[in-house]
Structures are given as structure tokens and as C-alpha cells.
């Protein structure tokens, strides 16, 4: 899993069977310190509770679709949880 920040909501006009009602979010991936890293992508929301401005953690590939029910759906990124606190330690 990796960190991301929700930067928007995506509202589809037409969506594949099995994905009706699944919230879609626009997510900017982050590095471990919370800085932007890479290009944003569309994420299904496995928590159904994330919203713009929140830091989340996401999973990619087949595991992403497993956050949803039914899980046999065309999804490649999904929000798994919302981050309350990110604490890093300096081990060097």
C-alpha cells in the first residue's frame, strides 16, 4: 500500500456493471513524507468515506478490486483506509 491525497471526486455518467454506486476519487500519490510524487489517478473508494483533502492509503492492481463487493470489477486502484496520523522515525 502507498500514501495518497484525495484531490477530487469523479462522477461517471456511464459506468460498468457492478460499479454503480461505488465512489470514485481523484488521488495524488505521495511519498512517505507526504509530498506529491507522480501523476494522479482515479481510485475506487473501498472505505466509501474518503473525501477531498484527506490523506489515504491505497492499493493497486488486483487487490484494489478486492475492496469492493462484487470484487470482479474493472478497478486497478482503490482506497483501503484513511490516514489519521503518519509518524516517521529517524533511524539513521
Amino acid at each position: 500500500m502507498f500514501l495518497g491525497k484525495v484531490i477530487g471526486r469523479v462522477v461517471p455518467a456511464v459506468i460498468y456493471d457492478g460499479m454503480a454506486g461505488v465512489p470514485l476519487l481523484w488521488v495524488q500519490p505521495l511519498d512517505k513524507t507526504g509530498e506529491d510524487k507522480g501523476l494522479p489517478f482515479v481510485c475506487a473508494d473501498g472505505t466509501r468515506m474518503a473525501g477531498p483533502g484527506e490523506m489515504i492509503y491505497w492499493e493497486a492492481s488486483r487487490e484494489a478490486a478486492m475492496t469492493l463487493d462484487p470484487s470482479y470489477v474493472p478497478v486497478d486502484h482503490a482506497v483501503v483506509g484513511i490516514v489519521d496520523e503518519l509518524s516517521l522515525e529517524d533511524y539513521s
Partner: protein
Amino acid sequence: MILAKVAGRITSTIHHPDMAGYKLLVCDKLNDRGEPNGGYVIAIDNIGAGAGETVIILDEGTGARQVLDADGMPVRSVIVGVVDDVS
């Protein structure tokens, strides 16, 4: 599997139901000299690894679900060992 160093942890109250109770650690991926290579991954810790420790991370979904005995859980990265020494 990959070698990584535990850099911190995240706490999360709202998450997918299958994630309840698991500790999530932020781990730096290591290069061939054992130094952080700039990449990271958030892995489930089921064996009690701590900050600064070098760990072995299984980075494959089916194996991860097998380790956690959790069919259908949306997880790919799990810490499966703590490393004493790499020589």
C-alpha cells in the same frame, strides 16, 4: 520478497473492514548496499517489527492473504521476517 527498513507507522480509524486490528508500517525499500533507495511501501506487520529494523516483506497478494489466513482481503505487502544480518 524484498528487504526494507521500518521508517514509521500510520494509524487509521476508517478503513476497509478486513484491515481491522492490523499494524501498518511505512518501510523504506533498500538498495544492494542496504541503504534506502527512495522507494517505500506500507506493509502489514503481523510479527512485531519495530522502527529501524530491517525486515523481509512479501510483496505478492495471494501469498500475503495466505500468511494472514484472510481470503479476499485487499492486501499485497506483509512483513514476514526481521533480519539480524545480511552478509
